[in-house]
């Protein structure tokens, strides 16, 4: 028996909560997204489950639901990015569970969701998120420097298909008579899905992710997330601009019409 190692490991297991699950990394990614996208919104609020500002962020310890705002226990906090009543208002959460198309629940390590959808759940009994996310990230963090098994990315592909089933069709055949008419579908810009890992991804894993529109970043370090944040910022900002341009009350539309 290596007593010194056993003692140090005992201390580590007690003092470093959430190590195996990579909770510190989860918090880092959550906070960095909020700070990076902050300038695209009017206000950023860090809120407890009651919707009140807090300086103590409670990070979800395991996959879970949005709690009811009436809960009196220790419940997870979230970050709100708000553009007021006519703009975008979204929330960032960690380890949040969503309803899949099959009815099975699926967790995203970090997710952005519509505030309106979250509020409906929060004002009721609490529960899973009934709509797809705007942004979803999977973090695989404790197999550093190994090559991830293909099954891990395969599992995330299933999750993405479950949460956003219509996202994967490029065209559909329409009509009762043959040959049916092939119609291009309008692929939505959102949701954006990301797969982040400090491990390597094999060629087949990368191909699988790319085919289903999952952005992947391998060999990552916690202090080296700039490339990821840059990609999220660019795609999110473009998507948000396109989306807002379509809104009838958008000021640019108003000016053009006058």
């Amino acid at each position, binding site marked *: 028996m290596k007593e010194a190692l056993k003692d140090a490991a005992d201390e580590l297991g007690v003092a470093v909560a*959430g190590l195996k699950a990579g909770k510190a990394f989860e*918090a880092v990614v959550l906070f960095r997204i909020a700070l990076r996208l902050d300038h695209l919104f009017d206000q950023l609020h860090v809120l407890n489950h009651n919707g009140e500002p807090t300086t103590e962020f409670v990070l979800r310890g395991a996959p879970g639901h949005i709690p009811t705002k009436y809960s009196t226990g220790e419940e997870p906090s979230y970050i709100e990015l708000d553009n007021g009543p006519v703009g975008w208002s979204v929330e960032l959460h960690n380890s949040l569970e969503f309803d899949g198309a099959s009815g099975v629940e699926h967790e995203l390590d970090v997710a952005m969701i519509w505030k309106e959808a979250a509020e409906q759940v929060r004002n009721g009994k609490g529960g899973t998120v009934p709509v797809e996310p705007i942004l979803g990230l999977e973090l695989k963090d404790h197999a550093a420097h190994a090559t991830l098994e293909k099954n891990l990315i395969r599992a995330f592909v299933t999750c993405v298909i479950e949460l956003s089933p219509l996202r994967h069709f490029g065209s559909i055949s329409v009509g009762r008579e043959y040959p049916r008419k092939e119609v291009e579908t309008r692929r939505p810009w959102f949701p954006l899905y990301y797969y982040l890992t*400090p491990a390597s991804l094999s060629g087949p894993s990368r191909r699988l992710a790319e085919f289903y529109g999952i952005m992947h970043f391998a060999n990552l370090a916690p202090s080296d997330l700039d490339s990821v944040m840059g990609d999220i910022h660019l795609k999110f900002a473009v998507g948000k601009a396109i989306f807002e341009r379509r809104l009838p009350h958008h000021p640019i539309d108003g000016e053009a019409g006058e």
Partner: protein
Amino acid sequence: MATIDPELLEYLASLRESPMAWLAELAEQRLKALDETPRETAGQRIEAAHIQLQEFRRAVLEPIKFEREATAELIELAPNLGLKSVILEGATGLPADLMSPHRLEAIDRFIAVIDEELRKSERIVRQREGEAE
């Protein structure tokens, strides 16, 4: 698949009896994935043990160093959001605050112990093989 040196088996057993048993599983997988090397002479056995000790060090310390970096990054980031603490919901250990400096201290102690123990093991293996010759 490599046969694991008795010295390494002791490390794995010690980790398995701690809350870090998952690290033992991770390390054992990595050790078994090494190629079996010839062990006919003392020199070959010392070299095989050395390779295994280094692989054990990498397997165990990579996730620990990753956590250290994440914790340090979190401590730097959180104040930018006006946060004083980041509490892990349902944490049974102490402290539950992911920004606590005790986390970094415990991680640093663990890294130092691993390095010190592995240095000892290199000596133990040499003595063992020297005695066996």
